């Protein structure tokens, strides 16, 4: 059967057809849809959202040791969080097959960095596949489980945005049934005390030698010979890009199984072509291996290391020109960056924070990172998931040490707080730091498209789940001052901020209102009665043309260039922030709504 699937969908479909019993993940672009697809088929597979990637991988390791095929999928930076179990699981190996999927983001479409996670395969001595398209995602996923069981090792599949989110036609195979190899106690294999780990380390290195032979033999690594003036070694989507540009004017060596590298094969390929080029997105990993094996090649001298290796960039680097399109100027075309939605419940908070001085605004990963942008300018730093609270803590200690009046404020979403913010808040309480932590509880994991989390009351398959109570958690961690506010009520927000900065101890403010894009649940409808059912409009007679409403930074509000009169478009959902800041009371509820 043939289907048009994204790479993410192909991975999920393949997991089901490979008889995988357990899948765990934390949402992260571009990997989110893998677990989402699996969770939608809860009759065929157990799939769950974990609070973070470390928990996801550790859970999958447990499932594999208990004897059934298991997987964990994550975005590239997620593997940093999961790196601890990843490295040591390479020592112990598995019971039944275990596959880890990393979805890297060359070009950083929705990420804070561009790290190349192929390094992890080398670093942890774990074998790695790099699919180029959806068919390869499907096929390699199945082979990865077989390889994992043959060599008793977790296997890494490295995808990139273009592989995850591109669709191509996939030929599906006959599904395998689920199986379980009953767990047998085996301390010499699974208990990594130093005496045992030393032996496991030797085994790991020996296994790597065997994997080199697999790499030479596997059909995922192959040469395609056409014109031999140019020889190209490529992996992942770069292979497709290269074929698009060079067609039959070059020969290709496709690296589908990329750790360990099939270096002898590449040496042979190199001997058949006049000049060898290495095409890989981000770091020169294959290139370094090839050159250090004594093979002459050209790589990053010519091709870019940053960003995506898009076809036009390959053409420009190689031929010194781009295809020419229609001639026109973009000089006066303004950029269109992402922005907080009309009605976003974060708006009220950022409006209030942006108007204050003397705050160090420590941000985190989520839609609310957009609070950094004008008109709010209300984020001073963003590093990684959970860092808002811990970095605010470090900053506050220094402010106090040098008698600065500055107050550190951490701004973190509900899902991100439960991901890794919780440990940081524990440190704030434990180390007696007067950080103000604001948890933006919009009742969902919003930026990745609305996934449930331990705070929302639903699991990945929309079954009922206990609700992690943020107030109770903060209290249990040792925070004494906790307040919950409606972020759409500016007075409430301002008062809470005044209250928090007046304290000489740590405090937590929870802004609780559902994401405007959230599919409301029954309990949301009860708790947030009337949310997003109204619209506001401008009473032009009352409008004083002051344009203060623009400081709400709302995509529903604009001001006429000539008359300076405000107007509100159809995307308004009635959060009322603009009405609250209008000094002329000119913004009023729309009656005929």
């Amino acid at each position, binding site marked *: 059967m043939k289907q048009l699937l994204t790479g993410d969908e192909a991975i999920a479909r393949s997991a089901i057809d490979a008889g995988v019993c357990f899948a765990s993940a934390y949402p992260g672009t571009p990997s989110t849809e893998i677990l989402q697809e699996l969770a939608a088929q809860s009759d065929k597979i157990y799939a769950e959202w974990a609070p973070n990637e470390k928990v996801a991988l550790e859970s999958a390791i447990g499932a594999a040791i208990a004897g059934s095929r298991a997987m964990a999928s994550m975005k590239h930076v997620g593997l940093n969080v999961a790196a601890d179990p990843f490295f040591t699981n390479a020592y112990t190996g598995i019971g039944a097959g275990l596959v880890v999927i990393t979805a890297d983001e060359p070009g950083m479409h929705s990420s804070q960095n561009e790290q190349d996670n192929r390094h992890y395969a080398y670093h942890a001595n774990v074998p790695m596949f790099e699919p180029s398209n959806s068919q390869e995602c499907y096929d390699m996923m199945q082979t990865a489980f077989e390889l994992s069981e043959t060599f008793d090792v977790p296997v890494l599949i490295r995808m990139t945005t273009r592989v995850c989110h591109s669709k191509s036609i996939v030929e599906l195979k006959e599904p395998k049934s689920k199986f379980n190899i009953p767990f047998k106690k085996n301390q010499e294999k699974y208990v990594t005390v130093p005496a045992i780990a030393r032996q496991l380390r030797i085994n790991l290195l020996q296994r790597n030698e065997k994997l080199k032979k697999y790499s030479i033999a596997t059909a995922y690594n192959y040469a395609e010979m056409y014109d031999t003036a140019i020889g190209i070694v490529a992996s992942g989507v770069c292979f497709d890009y290269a074929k*698009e540009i060079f067609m039959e004017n070059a020969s290709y060596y496709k690296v589908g199984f990329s750790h360990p590298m099939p270096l002898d094969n590449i040496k042979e390929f190199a001997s058949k072509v006049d000049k060898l080029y290495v095409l890989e997105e981000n770091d020169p990993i294959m290139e370094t291996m090839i050159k250090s094996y004594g093979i002459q090649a050209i790589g990053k001298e010519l091709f870019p290391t940053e960003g995506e290796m898009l076809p036009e960039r390959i053409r420009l680097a190689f031929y010194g020109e781009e295809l020419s399109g*229609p001639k026109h100027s973009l000089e006066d075309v303004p950029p269109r960056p*992402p922005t907080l939605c009309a009605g976003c419940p974060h708006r009220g908070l950022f409006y209030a924070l942006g108007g204050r001085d003397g705050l160090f605004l420590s941000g985190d990963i989520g839609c609310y990172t957009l609070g950094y942008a004008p008109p709010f300018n209300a984020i001073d730093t963003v590093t990684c998931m959970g860092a808002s609270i811990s970095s605010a803590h470090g900053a506050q200690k220094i402010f106090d040490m040098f008698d600065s009046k500055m107050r550190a404020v951490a701004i973190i979403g509900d899902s991100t707080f439960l991901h890794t913010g919780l440990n940081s808040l524990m440190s704030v309480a434990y180390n007696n730091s007067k950080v103000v932590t604001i948890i933006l509880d919009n009742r969902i994991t919003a930026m990745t498209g609305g996934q449930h989390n331990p705070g929302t009351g639903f699991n990945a398959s929309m079954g009922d789940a206990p609700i992690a109570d943020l107030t109770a958690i903060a209290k249990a961690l040792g925070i004494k001052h906790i307040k919950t506010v409606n972020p759409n009520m500016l007075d409430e927000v301002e008062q809470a901020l005044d209250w928090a900065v007046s304290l000489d101890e740590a405090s937590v403010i929870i802004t609780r209102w559902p994401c405007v894009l959230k599919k409301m649940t029954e309990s949301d409808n009860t708790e947030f009665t009337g949310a997003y059912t109204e619209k506001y409009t401008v009473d032009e007679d009352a409008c004083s043309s002051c344009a203060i409403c623009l400081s709400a930074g709302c995509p529903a509000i604009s001001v006429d260039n000539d008359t300076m009169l405000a107007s509100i478009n159809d995307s308004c959902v009635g959060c009322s922030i603009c009405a609250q800041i209008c000094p002329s009371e000119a913004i009023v509820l729309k009656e005929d709504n």
Partner: protein
Amino acid sequence: MSVKNIMLVGVGGQGTITASKLLTNVLMDAGHDVKMSEIHGMSQRGGSVSSQIRYGENVACPVIELGSADLLVAFEKLEGLRNLAYLKTDGAVVVNDFRIDPVGVLAQTAEYPPNVIERIARCVDTTVVAAYDLALEAGEAMTMNVVLLGALAKRMEMAPDEWEDAIKKNIKPNYVDVNLRAFHLGYTN
């Protein structure tokens, strides 16, 4: 046939992803090899978005190279202008006569350039669609994306039946009728 390239561009939230799903399904059912690439995630929050669709006998790569698109469908006119460089010199544009102000324009730190459609039409063969009005006529402003698909189908000289099947298969049952109306309004106007 040689590989054809179609690019859908617009603003996050306009339904380009649903539109590209319908288009790729129609093309696959017509027997083509199809590849499609799009970016999800942060850009969906009101930022510029694009879907790239390639079809033919044998498609190597899922993304469209600058200067090689046959058709550019702009769900918002400024996005059409922004992405013109993806077109071949003899490519064509289907543009929605619809304006969404970028955040800088709303905040009056930037200006929405004048005569956007005229500037596009000066460069390439251009079909202008009043998709918002037609979507309202169909009964639902949200069907603007399917109105544009109707116009695209017409421009591609494809018969409407396969599209109707794709709409019935891929759209939630309650919304099928309004989307079929939207498609036909786009096709015939």
